């Protein structure tokens, strides 16, 4: 506050009927603190248990340790080691195949299912709930159930296939087949959730658009191509971003279903990080370096999706 303002304010009599010139408050007082205070507890927890560990992982990635307790600074040594490791690239390859297959299948299947459910006249809610149930079951339990069902000799699936003369495929024995299995089980778990999101997007499309199109003689296929899918794109983008993040994070049900086998064919990046971190010999530095690489990849993929979505919106 300037001296001039202060003297003017001070000269006004307290009982003056004329309204005093508004006192200019200091800048810090003009800030509304209440919203910040409301979010403070959550942000403090988020900072302590998410942001700090995430940043500390970057710090850890610059150190080497053979026991998780004593550390030696190695600079980018862990990154060099990991990027020259055959095992890491094998894991990265499996992860990329898994993510691409999961995201494509999830988006297509969830969209198709949501459209099919939307067209239903009866039992829509019941069907949606039925598809949603696997999402509510613990992924560890899902993995164990499918593991039992897919056993080559005594599993339910092969018992049925064998009975109708289709033999006993080694679902958890052949590397490519097992990779396919974890994609399909992942789809089975998440389909209901993403269908729900796409369904919400479908509900948001004004029905008068379809009425107008019908009056203009548009077929179902033309309506789908020219109305439904373009208007669903923002919702589908959400599904693509979320399923990409989920796919990169996939671990629990895979660990109990295939254990990363056979011969490491379904060991994805999170299992690799877990085993490097927590199985003897504990190597926090290497695991942290893999975590940073995973973060950069997921962040880039999300950014690309987001920017592609923005560009489409601009068009």
């Amino acid at each position, binding site marked *: 506050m300037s001296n001039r303002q202060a003297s003017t304010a001070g000269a006004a009599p307290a009982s003056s009927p004329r309204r005093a010139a508004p006192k200019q408050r200091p*800048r*810090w007082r*003009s*800030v509304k603190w209440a919203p910040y205070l409301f979010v403070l507890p959550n942000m403090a927890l988020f*900072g302590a248990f998410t*942001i*700090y560990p995430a*940043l*500390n992982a*970057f*710090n*850890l990635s610059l*150190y080497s*340790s*053979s*026991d*998780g*307790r*004593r*550390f*030696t*600074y190695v600079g980018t040594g862990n990154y060099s080691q990991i990027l020259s490791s055959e095992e890491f690239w094998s894991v990265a390859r499996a992860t990329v195949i898994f993510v691409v297959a999961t995201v494509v299948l999830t988006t297509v299947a969830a969209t198709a299912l949501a459209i099919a459910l939307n067209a239903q006249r009866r039992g829509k809610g019941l069907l949606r709930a039925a598809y949603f149930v696997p999402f509510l079951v613990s992924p560890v339990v899902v993995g164990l159930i499918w*593991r039992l069902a897919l*056993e*080559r*000799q005594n599993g339910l699936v092969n018992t049925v296939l064998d009975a109708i003369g289709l033999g006993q495929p*080694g679902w*958890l*024995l052949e590397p490519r087949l097992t990779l396919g299995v974890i994609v399909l089980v992942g789809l089975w778990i998440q389909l209901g959730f993403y269908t729900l999101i796409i369904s919400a997007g479908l509900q948001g499309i004004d029905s008068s658009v379809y009425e107008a199109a019908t009056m203009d003689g548009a077929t179902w296929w033309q309506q789908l191509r020219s109305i439904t899918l373009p208007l669903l794109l923002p919702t589908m983008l959400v599904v693509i971003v979320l399923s990409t993040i989920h796919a990169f994070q996939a671990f629990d049900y895979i*660990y109990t279903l*295939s*254990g*990363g*086998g*056979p*011969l*490491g064919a*379904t*060991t994805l990046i999170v*299992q690799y990080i877990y*085993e490097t*971190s*927590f*199985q*003897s*010999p*504990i190597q*926090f530095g290497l695991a942290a370096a893999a975590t940073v690489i995973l973060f950069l990849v997921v962040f880039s993929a999300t950014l690309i999706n987001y920017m592609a979505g923005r560009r489409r919106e601009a068009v």
Partner: protein
Amino acid sequence: MRGHTLLRTGAIATFSAAVLALTACAPGGSDDDPTPGGGAEPGSETIDWEGFEGETLDYVYFTDGPDEAATRDLIGQFEEETGAAVNLQIIPFAELEQTLQARINSGNPPEVARVAQWYPFADSLVDVRTYLGEDYPEEFIAPQAAAGTDPEGRFLAVPNDLTMNGPFVNVDAFEAAGVELPTADDPWTWDQLVEDATAVQEANDMESAIAIDKSGHRVSTVLSQFGTTLLDDDGAALDPEMASAALTELNDLVGSGAILRDFWLEAGSRYAGAHEQFLAEQVPVYLSGNWQVGQFAENASFGWSAVPNACAERCGGFPGGKFLTAFSGSENPELAVAFVDWMNRTEQQVAMAEAAYWIPTRADLAEAEINYPDRVEDMAAFRADVEVTPEDAFAANAHPAFGAAATLVVEEVSAMFAGQQDPAATVEAIENGVAEAAELVQP
């Protein structure tokens, strides 16, 4: 508006600075940290047994099942005798090492932990001779005492129980097939084992002839019987010819279907025990170890027994075991050593052995009769195999690199079973990997 921008910028700058300050410092300790507890002379400290009234001791423990109740009973007696309170903290075996490392790192190690491998914590353990005297290791059987001693001669881990790998057989199935069981005087050769197991499998229409846990420890048993070990006191020790003979035998068994290929491959990167296959009467011979006796006694609905290990170049099984360790950085190392000493006295080891089918580690119990509640002959078979197990097998198991080497063996043998490499390539990969692992743990 400008105030908001300033505030936001200031907050972000403060937050970033705080985070950078927090993360920029080195995590944990440095490799140059001095060794705690080192340097004290054996017998230089004494235990004041009268002074533990009101003291508390954390005991980190993992359980194999029947041992938990017996441990709790002994803890009750210890508490009564000393007036100290024991806080038994049971955690899963898979989390043992990371839990202990985290507690040591945060300056809060437990007083005592039961561990299978003590090397990762060696710098944080008390040399119990400091309190219990230089001759204390002699109270235990020599190879296990050596397994608890570091290269400087410090007795850091007191052997608490000894395990021995060995085969179980489905006696009913053998009798139905009219095949005789091996005896201590006339053990199987590997050829006889395969022949008999296959005959029993076929006669009883079982899934496979032999089951072996997916474990580097179990493969080490076969390697030892064929005359070689992964490691010895000097480091990597695999004999390529003998190892090749052992792995060719196993690979042929998988190829013929005598051992289930599915079992090894379906388990992924994890350990897998074949006990369920044995309990389901789908295999006549199961190579595992004495820790299964308790659960088979409880759960098997058929006649079974433990038999002597098969011989090839030599006989015997492969040892393992658990150790009790006292932590120097804990609140009460003296109480910790007292507890370790008390739990490993003759009466206590006998109590644990009788209740949990353990093989004692004390020298005075090596030949003594243990009154196991049941299955006395089966436990006798395992104890007899301790006597004929070669010394280099004990040395291999005691080597700091054994855990990493065993993991590597499982990976390479799995690749061989999957047909990705032949036994010669598998031996070469194991040789190279074990040499690297041994190099990493060199002091």
